[in-house]
């Protein structure tokens, strides 16, 4: 059932971002050809352009699209959860024959994925904007050397995977904290948005207190000495604990004390 829920959340995500993601990539290419056109000269590291105003406008639009992409994604994460589970759409979602945790999990996976794709699109856009020669980019020997190097040092791939996992967990942690804050705010019959904000700061205070307590345990510091991979796994573990608690708290609240905005 989670797979089916994800299908509809992904569809919703695509409807939202199907314009802004390609727009960011297209604008990056436009910028590349304006900024690094053959008739521009590079003097002392600065680009001298004959079409300066056009370049400024094009660059501004590009930066605006990137900025909008991240703002839209933040709003999207909040809106999909609020409207999808707490607003009128909740009349549909909460009467589907699925478990409450699956509804929350679907929104969480989608929120994390949106953020990851945003980062990938932003990175790709920056890459497209660089004055690289396509023949260099698609040079199979260059990529072959990179893959050969990675194959000789498999630890590097592991570091990369650990780093990605840690970032993914950090994202899930941030999103579940917002979800739980909204769930707590929803327990109140009035001023639910304000109470959600208060709950968010309340959770932050609790987390700070918990971090202070955990940092006093000596064994945590000793764990970091267990090889160079240990810090990643400790960070993942430490992030997983509050993430799981936030997720379970949100699911429990919707299962036991749920009430829609207009209910």
């Amino acid at each position, binding site marked *: 059932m989670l797979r089916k829920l994800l*299908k509809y959340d992904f569809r919703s995500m695509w*409807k939202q971002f199907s314009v802004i993601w390609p727009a960011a990539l297209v604008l990056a290419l436009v910028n590349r050809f304006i900024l690094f056109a053959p008739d521009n000269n590079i003097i002392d590291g600065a680009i001298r352009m004959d079409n300066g105003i056009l370049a400024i406008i094009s660059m501004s639009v590009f930066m605006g699209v990137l900025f909008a992409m991240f703002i839209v994604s933040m709003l999207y994460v909040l809106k999909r959860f609020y409207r999808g589970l707490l607003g009128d759409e909740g*009349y549909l979602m909460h009467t589907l024959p699925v478990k409450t945790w699956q509804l929350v999990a679907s929104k969480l996976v989608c929120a994390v994925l949106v953020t990851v794709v945003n980062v990938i699109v932003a990175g790709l856009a920056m890459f497209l904007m660089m004055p690289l020669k396509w023949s260099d980019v698609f040079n199979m020997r260059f990529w072959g050397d990179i893959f050969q190097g990675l194959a000789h040092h498999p630890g590097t791939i592991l570091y990369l995977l650990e780093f990605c996992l840690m970032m993914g967990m950090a994202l899930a942690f941030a999103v579940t904290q917002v979800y739980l804050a909204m769930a707590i705010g929803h327990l109140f019959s009035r001023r639910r948005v304000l109470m959600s904000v208060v709950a968010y700061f309340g959770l932050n205070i609790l987390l700070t207190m918990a971090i202070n307590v955990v940092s006093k345990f000596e064994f945590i510091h000793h764990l970091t000495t267990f090889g160079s991979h240990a810090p990643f796994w400790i960070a993942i573990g430490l992030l997983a604990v509050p993430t799981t608690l936030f997720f379970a708290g949100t699911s429990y609240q919707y299962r036991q004390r*749920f009430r829609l905005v*207009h*209910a």
Partner: protein
Amino acid sequence: MNELLIKSRGVSKSYGRKTALDRVDLDVGRDRIVGLLGPNGSGKTTFIKLLCGLLQPNCGELAVNGQKIGPETKAQISYLPDRMYFADWMKATDLFDLFRDFYRDFDYDKALAMCRSLGVDPKDKLKSMSKGTKEKVQLVLVMARKAQLYLLDEPIAGVDPAARDFILQTILTNYNEEGTVLISTHLISDIEKVLDEVVFLKEGRVMLHNTVDNIRENEGKSVDALFREIFRAQPMEGGNF
């Protein structure tokens, strides 16, 4: 298959200090159309929301087809809420896809046929549809299922008398006759002719549960007349004007 489709024992629900349902005991069987009747604020919508799992009772036991409310009972219930639940990006066909994925008893072809007969283009975006057309789509979603229990919350409220007949006709010609339809409303005269049983709710308690035939025979009056008699508003007394 359980003979009792709905079984409620001592179910109470309150919102803060306000009691919406107070120790409701109710048994509803299969293969019938039941009117859940009562004035505004009598607890009709709350009872329906408890049945479809949108709310949880404070105390008491509630079961549908012998099972506690959960994903299994939700799969057997077709629910028409008193508001629109569409996401703005969807088309009617997106909703049909969703219902086909989640409900085994959803008949996709029947939904398309119903759309054709109701003059709805299922390929249109929902946000571009009028309120009346959206209501039709929601009705199609509910009635294209072969559910055990249909929960229809105020399906004819806020529409003109001609549209009421049309909605009732759509319900009557499309519901699963092995199942039960529970319709909440306070527009009794419009639906009395299609009801087999009625449940009167007053201030969160069941006042009366009987068949329409028994009421007519024993009370010598229509359900509508009995309702007006029981729920007649009492004017303020004692004032010297």
